[in-house]
């Protein structure tokens, strides 16, 4: 089935970097926001 994106020949390199930067920020943020109150901060 042809889709609108079929013409793209992009490699996912670079796209993955942004994904992991954002994922890391969210994971670290969540970990801190859960750990700090548990530590009584």
């Amino acid at each position, binding site marked *: *089935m042809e889709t*609108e994106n079929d013409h793209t020949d*992009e490699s996912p390199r670079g796209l993955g970097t*942004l994904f992991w930067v954002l994922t890391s920020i969210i994971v670290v943020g*969540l970990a801190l*926001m*859960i750990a700090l*109150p548990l530590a009584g*901060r």
Partner: protein
Amino acid sequence: MSMRRVLRDNGLGLVFLALFLLTLVGQSFAGHADNNEQLVRHGDAPLGYVDYVTSSSFAVDVAENWQSEFLQFFVFILATVWLVQRGSPESKKPGDEGRGSDEQQLVGAHARADSPAWARANGIRLWLCSNSLLLVMGGVFVLSWLAQSLAGQVVANEEGASHGVPPQTWLEYVASPEFWNRTLQNWQSEFLAVGAMVTFSIFLRQRGSSESKPVGTPHATTSVDSE
């Protein structure tokens, strides 16, 4: 790949990442100043910046907004599987409700050579691949709501202690009016904004935006690709 090409290909993601970081830093400065004004008003010593950004006061304010945003996308992603809005570019067209056939979804035997590897898999891997966006958005929602409740409990107990009120347990805090006031004031705005986006985009346009139908598309046309 040239830097210019990387920036052009990732403009949307990079701009929102930068906006997030700038506004988070802005929030930390404004929150620090606001927190210190309140401390001084109560006759307490002001807090240093690092102490503030590692405090439950800052965490609860960040977390209560995170949870509502991720809930918004979680509900919207789930709802758009099963519900449609005729005329809205945010919706599939009426008649397309549901999870779609394996052929439409390019999974199993219908996966292409360049499909994600797990789209070709079976069982749990295919299920995870098929629901990964909803699972991650839902997971971040649950964890940030948990963070809001933990940090909110600490802040409420600090506030209570200065007025001689005994501390609340976590369960008492999550049943408290303060927790639900913080929670629901964020949820209502998210649901209003999504409802407005879905409904307004039937009749209103933004030329050039992927969130809009092309300007001349009839109001009743739902999806430009499929009708």
